[in-house]
């Protein structure tokens, strides 16, 4: 017995506002993109004939295909860097910091930037990366180079550097959660049975945190695939990923092509999520 009767009409009606909102704001627009991507003709109207022409024209352009490839490459790079870095940080926070106060302080220092604007944090990298930027001045001050290096600002290196600082938290968070829920007795038992720490980690700790790793990787993947703002801010207009392509087509009023690029983006992301959901059950994570 609780404040709501199981399978009652009241439960159903309580769900209707939120459900309708999500249908109208997420599901219908997404399906609309799919529909528009098949539109032929020139006018923006629902009576347009349906064709595959937009896709054929998109896929016959080699530079667009290269762009899809570099988007995947960027996502894979970030998944590797953020995954490794995030796991190290999560492991250190949960397993190596024994002092409760220190742990809280480090955790806050790690998580607070996440609550501020991603856009501002991306912009904050601009004075760092420029030709007269902090990094170059530090390198020259240490005598490592005599001339400023121009590869940082308006380059994918700079974009990657900024994205690592933006998304490592996404990879670390779920691992922190999974690590913290491992009962200490489990590791103690393994240690008592004379397993060396490496074996404990490999056979006990890592398998138990695997769902967290997978969720973290999915989050990084989704965010990098869809990130066009960081690329635009730091890459200037010289670089583009799939997201930028959607925006460029949209601003150029080429709505059909924007829709095709968006459908591709959607397809890639959906495949990633489905793959991950086969590995872990997200619903069970919140429960005790």
């Amino acid at each position, binding site marked *: *017995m*609780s*404040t709501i*009767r*199981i399978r009652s009409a009241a439960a*159903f*009606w*309580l*769900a209707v*506002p*939120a459900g309708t*909102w*999500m249908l109208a*704001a*997420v599901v219908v*627009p*997404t399906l*609309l*993109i799919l529909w*528009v991507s098949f539109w032929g003709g020139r006018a*923006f109207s629902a009576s347009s004939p349906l064709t595959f022409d937009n896709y054929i024209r998109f896929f016959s352009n080699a530079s667009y295909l290269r762009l899809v490839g570099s988007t995947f490459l960027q996502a894979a790079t970030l998944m590797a860097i953020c995954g490794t*870095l995030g796991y*190290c*940080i999560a*492991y*250190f926070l949960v397993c*190596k910091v024994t002092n409760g106060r220190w742990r809280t302080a*480090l955790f806050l*220092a*790690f998580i607070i*930037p996440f*609550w*501020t*604007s991603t*856009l*501002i944090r991306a*912009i*904050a990298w*601009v*004075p760092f990366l*420029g030709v*007269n930027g*902090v990094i170059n001045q530090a390198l020259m001050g240490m005598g490592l180079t005599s001339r400023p290096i121009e590869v940082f600002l308006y380059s994918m290196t700079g974009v990657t550097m900024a994205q690592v*600082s933006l998304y490592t938290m996404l990879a670390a968070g779920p691992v922190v959660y999974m690590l913290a829920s491992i009962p200490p007795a489990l590791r103690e038992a393994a240690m008592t049975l004379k397993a060396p*720490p490496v074996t404990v980690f490999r056979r006990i700790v890592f398998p138990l945190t695997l769902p967290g790793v997978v969720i973290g990787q999915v989050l990084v993947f989704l*965010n990098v695939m*869809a990130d*066009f*703002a960081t690329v*635009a801010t730091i890459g200037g207009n010289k670089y583009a990923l799939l997201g930028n392509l*959607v*925006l460029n087509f*949209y601003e150029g009023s080429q*709505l059909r092509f924007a829709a095709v690029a*968006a459908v591709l*983006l959607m397809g890639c*992301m959906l495949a990633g999520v489905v793959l991950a959901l086969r590995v872990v059950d997200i*619903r069970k994570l*919140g429960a*005790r």
Partner: protein
Amino acid sequence: MLHWKTRSRLTGWVLGTVMGLFLLYQWLPMLVLGLLSFAGPTGGTTFPMNGVSLHWYRELWDASIMNDFKPPLLRSFMLALACSLTTVVLSVTAAQAVRGQFRGHNLFFYLLLLGIMAPGILVGFGFALMMRMLGIDPSWDTTAYITHVSWTLPFGFLTMLAVFNRFDPRLEEAALTLGASRLTTFRRITLPIVLPGVIGAGLFGFSLSYDEYPRSLFTTGADLTLPLAVMAQLDRQLTPELYAIGTTTTVFSFLAIGVFTFAFWALRRRVQPR
């Protein structure tokens, strides 16, 4: 071969160094941004700083019409507040509904999760297409509001689900057994206990909407919100004024988090006196 205790300590040091370097990596750009916003009137956007002044903050305050950040700031604040309230109401009702396990509640769960999974650029673009078909002009307080809530609501919903997962239903049962109606029980027992979670949902609603860029980009029309105004200014010209607005809005975010955290903490203390 080193003893395992030594090796374990060594691992700790290595990982600690990684963590320290990463924190530096994460915080240094923001601190530099803050520092450069206090540059003198002739200050550039990189080091070395030319003098120290509040020039760029004054510039921000009495700005021309072209780059006046005050109206966008107000719009973003109002929008975030509206999203926060909507998120609170809808996520509590939605989580309560899932507790009632109506037919199709599994589907409903995934429908809400879709709001987190679907990237802002797709939601924004699709919604803009939909509005164009319906012939509705986009505006920050109508279309942008709808897309923002579709982003903030799932976070609030997951927060409330996690709270209800740990909630002890015997407390409700006790009230119901004593003859209180379901509505009274919800209002007098359930709600006060889950209130810290409700505050958390509100915080998600506020800060996610306040910083939202991709959804706004497609659904905001002529009157810009703050992230859009910042981005537009970045496209025009990079001046320390941009750093000043960046610092201001970051401090503002911290203040908002502080207020919510304090409310959370105060409520926790009231609910669980120890």
